[in-house]
């Protein structure tokens, strides 16, 4: 009797909608955080410029879309260009700092983020640009017209992450990346060209950030500060998932996005962000190695 009253009080329709929303943002966040955690894991660099690589990816998407009219070409070119830019940034600013105080790499990447942000402001101006989604179909979900494109984002992000995982798992270069992540010194002694692996890992992370920028562009405006919110959330995800742990980051991205999505049923989305910080603080207090990693022995 009472149970049915409680069950009837739960807004099932909203929960389903928010589950979908949470998974969509979770997958985008996972894509950004995968790159961040890859870079941290392999070279102990906390990349403060990661959000700007995401932003730059979105802008390159805008430009390519405007010239070619193809969303898919925009996605591809933005990913490749930002990957190359990432390689250049790594060689110019991070390679010389390897093995120094972590503070130096934090300052270096922070400097890069300021440069990229102001470059975007100078080049594109303060007015937000828009990326047109490749198709604008909807389907009916209760009282909502839910865009198919959102589901496509989740699917594509999952595909990119899955592809990346397969690459890490089976490719020769994937083994090099994992070996270098675990023991940089021994990797060198086994003939793995560690400086090259570092550069390539940074480029891959940058490319993944750019891809998520283009994919997410149609849902929000593209402007020069769009990276800030995301990189903050991606940092939370990386810490909650266990620094440098790829699977943990993906699980944490979906977990936190779902929590935020559910919280925004009852409070405004701006307040729902608080949930992420609560999770972050609880994680740091009680399980600082990360929620989604096995307890260290």
């Amino acid at each position, binding site marked *: 009797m009472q149970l049915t009253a409680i069950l009837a009080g739960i807004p099932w329709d909203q929960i389903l909608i928010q589950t979908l929303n949470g998974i969509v943002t979770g997958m985008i966040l996972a894509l950004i955080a995968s790159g961040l955690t890859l870079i941290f894991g392999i070279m102990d660099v906390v990349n403060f410029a990661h959000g700007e690589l995401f932003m730059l990816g979105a802008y390159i998407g805008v430009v390519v879309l405007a010239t070619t009219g193809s969303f898919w070409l925009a996605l591809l070119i933005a990913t490749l260009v930002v990957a190359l830019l990432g390689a250049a940034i790594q060689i110019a600013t991070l390679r010389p700092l390897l093995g120094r105080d972590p503070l130096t790499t934090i300052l270096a990447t922070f400097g890069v983020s300021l440069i990229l942000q102001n470059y975007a402001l100078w080049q594109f101006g303060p007015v937000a640009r828009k990326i047109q989604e490749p198709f604008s179909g909807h389907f009916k979900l209760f009282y909502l017209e839910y865009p198919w494109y959102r589901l496509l984002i989740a699917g594509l992000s999952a595909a990119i992450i899955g592809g990346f995982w397969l690459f890490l798992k089976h490719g*020769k270069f994937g*083994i*090099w990346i*994992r*070996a270098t992540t*675990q*023991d940089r*010194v*021994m*990797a*060198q*002694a*086994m*003939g*793995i*060209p*560690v*400086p090259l692996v570092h550069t390539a890992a940074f480029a891959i992370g940058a490319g993944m950030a750019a891809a998520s920028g283009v994919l997410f562009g149609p849902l929000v405006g593209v402007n020069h500060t769009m990276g800030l919110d995301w990189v903050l959330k991606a940092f939370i995800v990386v810490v909650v998932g266990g620094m440098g742990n790829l699977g943990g980051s993906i699980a944490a991205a979906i977990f936190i996005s779902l929590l935020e999505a559910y919280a925004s049923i009852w409070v405004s989305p701006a307040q729902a962000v608080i949930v992420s910080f609560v999770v972050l603080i609880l994680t740091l207090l009680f399980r600082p190695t990360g929620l989604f990693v096995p307890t260290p022995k």
Partner: protein
Amino acid sequence: MSTAANDAPLIAVEDLHTYYGKSHILQGVTLHVGSGEVVGLLGRNGVGKSTTLKTIIGLVQPSHGKVVFEGNVVTSMPPHRLARLGMGYVPEDRRIFRLLTVMENLRTGLDRAGMTDEKKRALLEKVFAYFPVLAERRNQAGGTLSGGEQQMLAIARAMMLEPKIILLDEPTEGLMPRMVSQIRNIVDVLHRENVAILLVEQNVPLTLEASERVYIMEKGAVRHHAAARDLKVNDAVIHQYLGV
């Protein structure tokens, strides 16, 4: 003194000095290893034996002195290039890639330029014949192996480079007697295959048995050099430098 007859040694280390911060670890190490030769490096804990190996493979930069490999000065070369030139390194703490499977550990050395699938298969077969237990556990994570198995994996991994020399740092440390004799056999196998070995050990009898020549280090430098058959386990020299 030259046992390598008239041809140049495979590796020659000349007057190597190394600092860790302010402490002067290596204070002029000079030694050489001939092609296919097994050379022991003895000494008490902390005299710089491991640092000598690390400096040879390029993991530690010397402040003075040089390392000559096959006639070329390689002192400032990065470790990964030395590894490709044919220098294998088996560190004291083994440093297995714990989250990689046995097979993936081996592939870190196997997947390199110039290796055809056929060559890879042949090399793997050969190594699995020496270490059947690694073949059994090829899909198991390296971190789950026992200490002795990890030591075998560390040696097998170095063999994937088809090295001309293996720098072998305390391979029997902490192993059961049965494992120790297995490691001993592997040293002989490598010797037969004409792989040179620079063997750092605490186990004096084993070192004297396995090596052709031995160097004895004290306080960061080589103090004694002799043919292994000229030294006895209870030799006065051994007493003097090793206190055993």
